[in-house]
């Protein structure tokens, strides 16, 4: 019985220590002096690997999700004779919840794990240490560009998700299921507030992007320097990121909805 309490206390201490380390790590990544004209090409390169490479999966998922929401929504709304509200249903669910959350989850799975694996491999093969020995700070040369690239990519990908999902919903709702195009768009426009829905969704995606990239980069940097360690680190990235996204989504949504 006592040992269970002891173990729990030990777990609490270890957890706090890890949170502290990751906080200090984040601070150093953000604020270690990056020499701007040298970091800019590194940032561009990372934006390519993180943002552009994620584009295909985001767009395809957005298309399918938009189409399925439209399909399901039409099926139910039709029973109340309310199928002109389809545009509103689609746009609100996409902009408020589906776009930021699903983009962030996909981002964690695709970009997050590749960040963790790449940095973890550099850790395991001593590349980070040898960079330190050459008096080049790996935090600003390797970690920081990846972090900012993740942070910048997340809202861009979310907006693209918004657009493609709504277009997909339009294809299914209007072109296939016969909802009137005029009422589709006008009901949507009347009910979707730019600042309250679209921009709030973007704010959510910024928060998610920040947290996911932070977790991914931290797990890679502090992984145990062997193959098993890297495998565990990538798993942790996905699991922790997903939980963080869903928990933060609930908190942000409750804050945002109150303003109405």
């Amino acid at each position, binding site marked *: 019985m006592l040992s269970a309490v002891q173990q729990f206390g030990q777990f609490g201490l270890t957890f706090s220590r890890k949170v502290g380390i990751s906080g200090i790590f984040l601070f150093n990544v953000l604020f270690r002096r990056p020499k701007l004209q040298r970091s800019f090409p590194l940032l561009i390169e990372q934006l390519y690997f993180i943002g552009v490479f994620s*584009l295909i999966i985001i767009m395809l998922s957005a298309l399918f999700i938009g189409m399925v929401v439209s399909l399901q929504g039409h099926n139910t709304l039709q029973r109340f004779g309310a199928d002109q509200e389809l545009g509103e249903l689609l746009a609100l669910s996409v902009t408020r919840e589906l776009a930021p959350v699903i983009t962030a989850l996909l981002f964690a799975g695709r970009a997050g794990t590749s960040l963790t694996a790449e940095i973890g491999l550099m850790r395991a093969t001593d590349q980070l240490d040898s960079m330190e020995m050459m008096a080049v700070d790996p935090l600003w040369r390797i970690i920081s560009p990846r972090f900012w690239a993740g942070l910048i990519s997340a809202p*861009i990908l979310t*907006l*693209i998700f918004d*657009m493609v999902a709504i277009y997909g919903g339009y294809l299914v709702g209007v072109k296939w299921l016969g909802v009137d195009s005029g009422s589709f768009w*006008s009901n949507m*426009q*009347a009910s979707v507030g*730019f600042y309250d829905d679209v921009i709030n969704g973007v704010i959510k995606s910024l928060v998610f992007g920040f947290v996911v990239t932070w977790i991914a980069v931290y797990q890679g940097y502090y992984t145990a320097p062997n193959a098993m360690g890297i495998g565990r680190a990538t798993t942790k990235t996905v699991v922790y990121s997903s939980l963080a996204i869903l928990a933060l989504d609930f908190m942000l949504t409750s804050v945002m909805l109150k303003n109405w």
Partner: protein
Amino acid sequence: MTETLVGLFMILGIVALGFMAIQVSGLSWYAHKANYYKVTADFDNIGGLKVRAPVMIAGVSVGEVANIVLNASDYRARVTLLVDQDKAKLPTDTSASIYTQGLLGSNYINLSPGYADTFLANGGLIETTNSAVILEKLIGQFLYSFQSKPSQEK
């Protein structure tokens, strides 16, 4: 090559933002805030009226509800309405009522303009108001009238 693609990526993001702004949210709707003028109206009961509910004349949206507060002196609800100047000028004997959109919908303000020659200015007050229909009162009235009917027949 990578720069080009990254540039295209960011342009796609901006295009998406533009699409969302114009096609999805009808942003231009709220772009003319400058052309709104404020009018207030006091109600005995606003029912389920919420801020940002539409203000309509003859079923056409001309503005929205900006603010709802309790008037501490006479315990009535003071509602502030924003009305688009380009759409409607309100005569001073306009009346305001709270209606419900459709059968299950939310409440909105309906304005019925009168025949006066002078118009309300920014900060004006609508004198005549009709409160929202409260379901419980309606049921109460119905039951009351139902009860009194059989006694009349006696």
